């Protein structure tokens, strides 16, 4: 995280850095990092040299490219990778969240995002030559997608409660 914050100084305006550092300082006072975790953060610097970035797992080859980042909670973020470190902490510029419900989708603009590495599932390069989504998908407004999301959530909740009520039947 330290590296990301320092590297941000190269890219962004001063006020922006102040806010990020304040956030980092707050989280430090709230969460006590266990000694083991801290050691993990200190060790394992696996910096790939410039000559082997395209052969290593390093994200360096994705820098300044448009990426899709899948998070552990299922969210899909899209943005341009500006910085990263060995934990897959990442800085996305012009980030947006892509919400997909059935055939509907919506892109919500988010701005500059710092993603903590532990939440990252996958980082994929979006091929500019290809369509990002199948042609049959329909772009809808933010309110519509929120409504669709809620309807989907309600449907799964209902399914869950129905199953619970039927449990006594011992269906397999």
């Amino acid at each position, binding site marked *: 995280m330290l590296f990301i914050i320092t590297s941000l100084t190269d890219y962004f305006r001063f006020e922006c850095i102040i806010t990020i550092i304040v956030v980092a300082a707050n989280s430090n006072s709230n969460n006590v990092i266990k000694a083991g975790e801290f050691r993990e953060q200190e060790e*394992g610097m*696996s910096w790939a040299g410039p000559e082997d970035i395209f052969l*290593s797992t390093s994200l360096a080859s994705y820098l300044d490219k448009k990426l899709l980042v899948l998070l552990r909670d299922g969210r899909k973020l899209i943005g341009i990778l500006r910085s990263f470190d060995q934990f897959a902490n990442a800085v996305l510029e012009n980030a947006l969240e892509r919400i997909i419900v059935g055939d509907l989708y919506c892109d919500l603009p988010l701005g500059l995002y710092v993603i903590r590495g532990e939440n990252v599932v996958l980082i994929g390069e979006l*091929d500019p030559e290809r369509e990002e989504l199948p042609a049959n998908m329909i772009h809808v407004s933010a309110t519509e997608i929120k409504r669709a999301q809620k309807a989907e959530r309600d449907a799964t909740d209902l399914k869950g409660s129905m199953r619970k009520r039927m449990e006594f039947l011992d269906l397999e």
Partner: protein
Amino acid sequence: MLFFSYFKELVGKEVTVELKNDLAIRGTLHSVDQYLNIKLENTRVVEQDKYPHMLSVKNCFIRGSVVRYVLLPPDGVDVDILHDATRREARGG
């Protein structure tokens, strides 16, 4: 470091990586590191219809901590060599 070395041997082979969120991705193993983070090339999602957002992703980085399985090509394991390496590792060599 046994599995790290082992995965390094598989670089260039076609593997399927199944994630803890049930997403399964098939692709050519490009590289792997000590956390078993994986980079795949020429990827395709096994159930593409369920994951439309993955359509244009052809290269990807997968964080080692979210991997459930890696399915290997049938000729991916030389059992005898792996056996020996395991014993050596267990002895602490």
